[in-house]
């Protein structure tokens, strides 16, 4: 067989031309980034971004269908360029995956090149646009004329095209704000963490009650000379429950009694109390080979009450509150035109109100379950349905791919 080597830039173009083109595009992106440093990419909001996206899509579809036989267009929608662009996106993402992202190094060369915010930099944006053009052209050829055989290809590629384009073009319309509400109060002021501004919401949130559940507390050994909990050495946290045992260097500890919620009684010993006010108490039996066992109550304490510790020789046994298990806010949302909704917000259980989504976000970390306020994140993303449509198309394509892949197994296609 005679191997005919293609000359540079001889049609049809392949990997060499595609890699040069891709590398140049990324370079141009970095140059633009450097030249316009600090200004960022202009962000268009609805309806401008929707119009721009529609024009872009129409342009690609028109080019793909109108110039289907043109060698340049064929190259632009082909796999070699697609692969090179995938590599370019990978390299840029790799930078974003290694270099800490955030505005830390203002003024440095890194910041001027956008390396510390790569995903909103010019090189990344340019590559994504080229990627969309490439993907869109290849898609246009499979869409027209339509053939059921291409359904799997269409679901994958159109799904990805829709999700990526709507995610990117719709980003300026995404609003993420935080509302801080005190218990028993109402607020319609929201804080934007991105640009440090306050804005008024079209609704107000009333916080009736904030509550937090904890995991069982943990037992720690504390050596006052070392100023650090000794728990690190055994590397094992001991969750406190009745019957729990632990030992450190010949000292054995057993939890002989545990009250998840109690308050000190008259003689100092704890008595069970209702869960809103009480704190966990545990009775420890501490023993070692050369000393009689002693019993002592310990407790985590609260902002209103000092913790109890148990002393054994120069060591102290202390109990730390458990990690938060769940926290929730009972709220009522009042709209401007009188409508109202009551709900309980919890992590992983956001609610939809008047086109916004409300999330339980945080609370006063200093005091944990005694927090008097709740932080609620309110989010609006008008482009979400389009992005999700893309996701579901990809998943449908995936299912077909899975099925067909299994069916053809064994043979190399």
């Amino acid at each position, binding site marked *: 067989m005679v191997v005919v080597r293609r000359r540079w830039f001889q049609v049809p173009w392949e990997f060499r031309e595609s890699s040069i083109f891709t590398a140049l595009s990324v370079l141009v992106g970095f140059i633009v980034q450097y030249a316009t440093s600090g200004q960022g990419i202009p962000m268009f909001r609805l309806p401008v971004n929707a119009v721009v996206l529609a024009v872009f899509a129409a342009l690609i579809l028109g080019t793909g269908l109108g110039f289907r036989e043109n060698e340049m267009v064929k190259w632009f929608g082909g*796999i*070699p360029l*697609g*692969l090179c662009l*995938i*590599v370019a*996106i*990978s390299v840029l*993402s*790799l930078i*974003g*995956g*290694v*270099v*800490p*992202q*955030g505005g830390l190094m203002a003024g440095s060369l890194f910041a001027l090149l956008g390396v510390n915010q790569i*995903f909103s930099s010019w090189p990344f944006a340019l590559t994504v646009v080229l990627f969309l053009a490439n993907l869109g052209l290849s898609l246009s050829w499979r869409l027209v004329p339509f053939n059921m055989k291409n359904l799997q290809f269409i679901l994958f590629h159109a799904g990805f095209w829709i999700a990526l384009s709507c*995610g990117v073009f719709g980003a300026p319309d*995404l609003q*993420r704000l935080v509302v801080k509400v005190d218990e028993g109060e109402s607020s319609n002021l929201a804080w934007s963490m991105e640009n440090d501004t306050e804005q008024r919401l079209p609704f107000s949130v009333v916080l009736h009650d904030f509550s937090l559940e904890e*995991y069982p507390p943990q037992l720690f050994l504390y050596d006052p000379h070392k100023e650090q909990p000794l728990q690190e050495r055994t*590397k*094992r*946290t001991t*969750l406190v429950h009745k019957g729990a045992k632990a030992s450190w260097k010949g000292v054995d500890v057993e939890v002989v009694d545990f009250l998840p919620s109690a308050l000190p009684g008259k003689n100092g010993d704890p008595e069970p109390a209702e869960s809103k006010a009480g704190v966990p108490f545990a009775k420890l039996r501490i023993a070692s080979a050369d000393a009689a066992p002693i019993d002592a109550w310990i407790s985590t304490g609260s902002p209103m009450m000092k913790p109890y510790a148990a002393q054994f020789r120069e060591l102290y046994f202390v109990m730390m509150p*458990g*990690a*938060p*298990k*769940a*926290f929730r806010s009972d709220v009522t949302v009042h709209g401007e035109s009188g409508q109202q909704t009551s709900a309980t917000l*919890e*992590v*992983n*259980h*956001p609610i939809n109100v008047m086109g916004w*989504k409300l*999330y339980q*976000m945080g609370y006063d970390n200093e005091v944990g379950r005694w927090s008097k306020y709740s932080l609620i*994140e309110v*989010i609006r*993303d008008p482009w*979400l349905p389009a*992005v*999700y449509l893309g*996701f579901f198309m*990809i*998943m449908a394509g*995936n299912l077909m*791919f*899975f099925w067909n*892949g*299994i069916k053809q*197994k*064994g*043979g*190399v296609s």
Partner: protein
Amino acid sequence: MIVDFNTAAITAIAFWATGSLLGLFARRTPVLKLPALILSFAGSLVMVCFIGLYWSLLDRPPLRTLGETRLWYAALIPLVGFLVEYRWKITWLKYYCMGLAVFFLVINMNHPEVFDKTLMPALQSPWFIPHVVVYLIGYVMLAASSVTALHNVFLQLRSKENVAGESVSHYLALLGFVLLSFGLIFGALWAKEAWGHYWTWDPKETWAFLSWLAYLGYLHAYRYKIDQGKLQWYLALSFLVLLVCWFGVNYLPSAQNSVHTYTNG
């Protein structure tokens, strides 16, 4: 703990070791084939039972920490090896798979602190299990794909014809890619519920995206009829990206502000 991890791990390792040993002898003495298979299988069964018991003990699926995902990996990887032997009559893969499983169990035996009971609120979601299970199975497939590809590379270097091996690594990569795609999308849908946005370029997300791109690139190169032999190198090396995503992200400079690094250990 009622079910002691070390006992379970050592039992499983013993089963795999004797199973493999018998398997090697079975080349000469075919009657040993069945007992070898049963013993190797029993090793995975022990791990599956351990995971089941541990799950009921914890009151939550043991899928939170890296240590816990290693348990699943240890139970599932050998099963892929057995499946490949059954379907494609390739016998050597299971030995690699059992070796890898032993490696994961030994890591866990040396780090008892990875077994912690608490589950933070953001992880308490119906998405948690599908997301992690899909990823785990995907990683198992891709690990097997890489091992097969590496084996193919060695055969190539000794100029041996090996079409069957290449199609195995290809199909494992293909199935793995499908599962990665599901995992990525499930993750995005979950993130929207838990953190308010489906994609934030968090380092963990970025690396998950990178590993997905690596296999996307592979599939297109394959479609473009790039030499299958060369692509074996690519498949063998792709797993490195997955490893960074899985273990390595916590150690990268970018991880200092990740929301997903609760899985220390």
